[in-house]
């Protein structure tokens, strides 16, 4: 198992390097340049000074090598715009994104898994059809639209919920206030995941319910409850774990649209702004962090697999 893990980690490192290099190449190739240098009122001389200070007058391969060396020393560089260390900028935003991500994952799981099981148990019933129709709707609603509608209803019409931000600025922190702010973006972000997960859970449970050992258990006269909890779920949830694992990167990468519409101070919004302003170090930093989390979470999924299903061997 150790050998397997070591190999996988090496593999992961390679993937991260490829992603980072590809991002760097794209940034260099894309037309336009850092917004900081595009101020038309700046004289050519001042522009040259600034370009030099940012290290952008170096050949591309030097810039690339410098960045790689920096990363090897755990230094992601500094933001062009604010001059803050990129790691600081990202970690400032990470808690907000993680909170929103976890809340929406919890909401999605809490609704989708029971709904999926219920739909599978009553396959073909009105309940099943209703749930599956609802999940189809959930998959099709564009999140920016839903977000605006929720803001109009919740904040403008009912004036019950705030329309953006994480806390009410200027007021002492309270959990109630945080939850109020969290509610709408969590719903928007959870909806898509919820719909996907419900469909996965349903089909997975259905698949297991048709298996021989379930029929045997029924033949033995075991109560449905026991069959479901002891024989079906553990097997049925293995593929669901995969889906959850693939959703994990959202917890750190943020949801670009949701965070922007709800003024949520997270990483997703940070990365969009950085991309617009061509703040190269921040774009590279976020990409690097997200790709690390992606490979680590897929590794985690594989390990969990082996734990949940002893037939699967690592190595």
């Amino acid at each position, binding site marked *: 198992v150790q050998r397997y893990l070591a190999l996988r980690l090496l593999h992961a490192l390679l993937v991260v390097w490829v992603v980072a290099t590809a991002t760097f190449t794209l940034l260099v190739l894309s*037309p*336009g*340049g*850092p*917004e900081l240098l*595009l*101020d*038309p*009122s*700046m*004289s050519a*001389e*001042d*522009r040259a*000074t*600034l370009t030099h*200070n940012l290290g952008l007058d170096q050949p591309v391969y030097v810039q690339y090598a410098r960045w790689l060396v920096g990363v090897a020393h755990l230094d992601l560089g*500094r*933001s062009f*715009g*604010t*001059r*803050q*260390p990129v790691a600081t*900028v990202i970690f*400032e*935003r990470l808690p*907000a994104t993680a909170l929103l991500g976890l809340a929406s994952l919890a909401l999605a799981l809490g609704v989708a898994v029971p709904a999926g099981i219920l739909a599978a148990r009553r396959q073909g019933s009105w309940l099943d059809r209703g749930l599956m129709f609802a999940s189809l709707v959930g998959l099709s609603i564009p999140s*920016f639209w839903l977000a*605006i509608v929720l*803001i*109009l*209803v919740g*904040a*403008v*019409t*009912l*004036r019950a919920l*705030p*329309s*953006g*931000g994480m*806390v*009410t*600025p*200027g*007021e002492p922190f309270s959990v109630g*206030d945080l939850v109020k702010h969290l509610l709408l973006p969590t719903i928007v972000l959870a909806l898509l995941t919820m719909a996907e997960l419900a469909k996965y859970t349903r089909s997975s449970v259905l698949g297991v319910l048709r298996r021989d050992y379930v029929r045997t258990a029924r033949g033995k006269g075991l109560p449905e409850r026991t069959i479901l909890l002891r024989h079906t779920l553990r097997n049925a949830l293995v593929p669901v774990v995969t889906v959850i694992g693939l959703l994990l990167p959202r917890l750190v990468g943020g949801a670009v649209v949701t965070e*922007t*519409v*709800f*003024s*949520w*101070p*997270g990483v997703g*919004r*940070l990365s969009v*702004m950085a991309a*617009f302003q*061509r703040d190269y170090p921040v774009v590279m930093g976020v990409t690097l962090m997200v790709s690390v989390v992606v490979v680590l979470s897929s590794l985690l999924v594989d390990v969990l697999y082996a734990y949940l299903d002893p037939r699967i061997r690592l190595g």
Partner: protein
Amino acid sequence: VSLPEHQPFPTTGIRLTRRGLLLTLSASLVAACTPTTPSAGGSATAVPGAPAPTARATAASGANVSTGGTLRLPISIDPIPLNGVISNELSSLLVRRVLFSYLTRVDPATKQAVPDLATKWDVSADGLTWTFTLRNDVKWHDGQPFSADDVKFTFDQILDPANSSVERSNYLDVSEVVAVDPRMVRFQMKNPLMSLPIITGATVGILPKHLLQGKPLRDATEFNNVMPIGTGPFKMKSITSGSDVQLVANEAFYRGRPKLDAVIFKIVPDSNVVLAQLKSGELDFATVEAGDLAAVQNDPNLVLKEYPAPEWWYYVVNEKNSLFSDKRVRQALVYGLDRDAILKAAALNHGVSMTATIPSALSDWYDASLKPYPFDVAKAKSLLSDAGWMPGSDSVLQKAGQKFSFKISLDNTSAARKQMAVLAQQYWKTLGLDPTIDELSRTVWAQNMTNRTIDISVANTPSSWDPDTQRRFYLSNAGSNFGQYSNPDADKLLNAGVAETDTSKRKSIYVQYQQLVYDDVNAIAGYYPNELRITAKKLQGLPDLPIRDVMTYMDQWYFQG
């Protein structure tokens, strides 16, 4: 994405009752608390949901009508760095307008420079020496006294090429700034710069020497990113990345304590959400695009104010491109546009048609005798044929085997600019020209402008309140002369205008300039827009000035009712 034109959800009933209830509740709560709550510093928003209980309570008790409350207004990104020498990004600028003070500010009525940190200023007869006398009652937010050394320090930072200051190009005519005594600063000039009082009021808040001397200006310092110290009416309380910037009243402000207790700049990146938050009462102030007006216009709790903005919306025309080097061709391009239709489509008629490049908002300088070019297709066509352009076999105009084909460039971030491009394309096609639209991302577009690789480009440019802004855009080889306009007579007038110390002579010089470039077409006219300001009904005390200038009067803003 924009909100539907009419309000999709009924908003009466519930809201009125809720508000009524909250109002009564908060008023009585605050009234009950008042004796034990210290009034200074103002924890005014103790009751959630009631934005300005103090103001309401005091209003009810009939005492000082106008003290207290927290103002909330939007910015779009983190306003960092909060240092005017190295940033002129709008979010940062708006926050700095209230944190820092400037030597001058703009008078709402005359649009002339009036005292702020400086109490008066004089210029020598040759225009080469400016003397500013400073207030003697100004303290930094940390309690240290403000003096002429701070002014000198700030301008030294701007002028030091090593800082690559964004403001340096404004002060290239300054050779040296001297602190004559603690209350007097002298600007020694290389060339006369009559716009200096206006420019200094618009561009740079004075920085504290005692905190910044000898420190690297561009780094992510505590001062730039966390706790800037100014002399303005409000001082920094906290910055939360991606969320908000909170300021509190500066009790020791030199014009007296501001009427508001606190100001919160909320970072709201999506303009639809700014509209929603205005409607829901989560924001008290914002400027909006004409296209968004319908969403907020009829709300009983909001007030719309509009006034001419010192700005011109136009088409940059590259006069080094052989297609456009002939004046008659440029005139034809203006005659060929139905600019009433363009004003209607792009600005929903919130503005007026443009004549020359000095905006009508600069009413002291604007030549009102000029009339916008009329929409006259026949005249446009005859001018083009006078210039030698004849229809080819495909009915596109040609001259010496060259087709009249060109690109209309624009950036993809504004619906109004898109309207301008699309309409111009249609109108110019009817003249027999062959324009194509080239819609670019903002950074690419800006780079093309800087490199002068455009044919025609949609643009809008804010002016200072002094017509000298023209020099930066239309003097031969000027930094922002994107159309590479070059006319020795215009150069002469622009250079004379900035050097003339007699105001009435200055005016006649700029009138001549406007008549010259109106005829010579230094830019293809669009319109002068109005700025559209939405405020909460209870917010009062704002002079009719555009957002950058109205901020310098924030010490007088207050909530009522």
